[in-house]
């Protein structure tokens, strides 16, 4: 797009690149903000249905579909309060830190082949690293609020997120190992074709690892049953007790953005990314090389596919939230250190051995019958990129330890 703007429209390069960067940033921002609007509404409806209520029904006509917008306007109009003993600078800056971390991780997340803010060859690593920074905002908020409830919440969040990065990193390493690259685009492309090509169904170990990833992802974005940082029955509202108005809503946009992000990451790593359960485009005879416009629409289709999978992941998180009771802090730590980490480690070793001894499935051609069907958007990925994966795996494990 930048080349088009610079070469065809005739913009000077600096302006072209600024426009392109602005468009990409605006799109990502809209994914987060628009997504948050929809997800908050969905959360209300799902919570209501699970608790045998109706949820919002009136705002905006039927189904209360404008409820989130009404809430947004209310939040805009609310007074921006700051407690008396608070550290002003840190109190003000904390919501933006949280939001920026969530936003930055989206930069490397591909929405379809080539639909990515900035394609990094260490995309997985970048996303995981940046996602871990979101807790900064929470700790700053908890500290700066000058409230013991906030501080308790922040400390719990810090302990929880730092612990859960260990098994999360191990789970993420497994698809990286299978794909031989940390490039998210290539990882998703390698799962093209029928759903049997997804890394979820690659072997029994990856199947288990996926569920460990789900657990750790829910915990790392601080959702129930792991929402100890804002346990309202113990800590009033945890780290955001003292926040009101727009600053408070920034925390929530960050939370919903992160939920969407870990779901999309799960979709890319384990669920084939933008490659559907059925290679519709391939079956219809539409594949790469039929022209730019066709390619564009195929990718648009892929993006819808990925967004659908990610939305499904977010809905599952809501379902979990309103179904399971909150864990105690010691149970949270036990889940992480005594269950998730060893399971992830064993499954990592298992997937490695599987890849060594049974690379083509149990019986070649039977276990994964459609392995040869490709959408054809990317031919022969990997190759030279296969080598650097092991040091990364080691590095992640070391950082985690």
């Amino acid at each position, binding site marked *: 797009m930048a080349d088009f703007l610079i070469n065809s429209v005739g913009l000077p*390069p600096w302006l072209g690149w600024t426009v392109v960067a602005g468009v990409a940033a605006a799109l990502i921002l809209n994914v987060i903000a628009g997504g948050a609007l929809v997800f908050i509404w969905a959360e209300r409806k799902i919570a209501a249905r699970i608790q045998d209520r109706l949820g919002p029904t009136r705002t905006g006509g039927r189904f209360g579909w404008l409820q989130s917008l009404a809430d947004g306007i209310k939040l805009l109009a609310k007074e921006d309060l700051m407690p008396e003993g608070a550290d002003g600078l840190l109190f003000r800056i904390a919501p933006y830190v949280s939001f920026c971390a969530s936003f930055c991780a989206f930069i490397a997340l591909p929405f379809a082949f080539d639909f990515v803010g900035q394609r990094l060859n260490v995309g997985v690593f970048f996303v995981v*690293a940046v996602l871990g*920074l979101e807790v900064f905002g929470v700790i700053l908020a908890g500290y700066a609020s000058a409230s013991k409830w906030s501080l308790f919440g922040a400390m719990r969040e810090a302990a929880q997120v730092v612990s859960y990065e260990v098994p999360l990193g191990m789970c993420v390493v497994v698809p990286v190992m299978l794909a031989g690259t940390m490039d998210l685009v290539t990882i998703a492309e390698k799962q093209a074709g029928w759903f049997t090509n997804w890394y979820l169904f690659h072997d029994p170990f990856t199947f288990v690892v996926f569920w460990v990833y789900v657990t750790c992802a829910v915990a790392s974005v601080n959702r129930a049953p792991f929402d100890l940082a804002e346990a309202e029955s113990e800590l009033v509202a945890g780290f955001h007790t003292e926040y009101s108005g727009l600053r408070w809503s920034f925390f929530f946009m960050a939370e919903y953005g992160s939920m969407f992000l870990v779901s999309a990451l799960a979709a890319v790593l384990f669920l084939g990314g933008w490659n559907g359960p059925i290679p519709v485009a391939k079956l219809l005879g539409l594949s790469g090389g039929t022209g730019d416009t066709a390619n564009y629409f195929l990718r648009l289709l892929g993006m819808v596919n990925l967004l659908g999978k990610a939305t499904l992941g977010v809905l599952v998180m809501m379902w979990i939230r309103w179904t399971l009771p909150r864990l105690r802090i010691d149970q949270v730590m036990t889940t992480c250190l005594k269950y998730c980490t060893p399971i992830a480690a064993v499954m990592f070793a298992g997937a490695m051995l599987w890849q060594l001894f049974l690379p083509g499935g149990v019986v070649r051609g039977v276990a994964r019958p459609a392995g040869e069907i490709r959408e054809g958007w990317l031919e022969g990925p990997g190759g*030279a990129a296969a*080598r650097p994966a092991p*040091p990364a795996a080691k590095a992640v494990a070391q950082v985690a330890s």
Partner: protein
Amino acid sequence: MTGGIMIAAVNFHTLLFYLFALLACGFAVGVVVADNVVRMALYLVLSLGATAGLFFLAGAEFIGAMQLMIYVGGTLVLLVFGVMLTAQAPFVSIKTSAGDRVLAGIVAASLLALLLQAAFSVEAWRRPGLGEEGPPAATPLGTALVGVRVDEPAAGAPAGVRSGYLLPFEIVSVHLLVVLVGAAYLARAKRRRTPRAIEVAASVAPPSEMRRRTTGSASALAAGGAR
């Protein structure tokens, strides 16, 4: 993409470099000047984050992500400790005496002078690097770390001669592990075991009675008492 970056190189690369460099240096000064531990940690995070930005700008994405994960993430723990240790009023602000400031200034200035002199004395770094495609440095280094020297193929050499940096890498890893275990050992809670009622009763028993007991609880009690 990279081709496009080259087009805009003159403007953007320089501009962003100065922006990130300014941020990194400015917040580094902020760390020194601030007197609140938590704010210091925040400035440190921002400074290190800007350094990660510099790495990304240079195309070293892996190092940039590493910087984010290790340094910025590690500062997170520092921040937590800062909050935990200084949440009480008397420790919130830390004052540095004027003498310390002068001393620190002298040390910092001499180190800076030394580094600048060393950096400018390297011939290869003086050239303007823009527009030159150097050899991709990260991949051979990464493969060398796991024991494969793709940059220096072992021509005719027997297998195992050019083993890369796997051994030093593993030695460093084991060192880190040893340091971690040592730190955990030093920092472990030294529990003072309170003797149970039956052990108290045993210890006030006549000495002959004590001596007859071979190892078991008496020695354990002694060991516990010694701690």
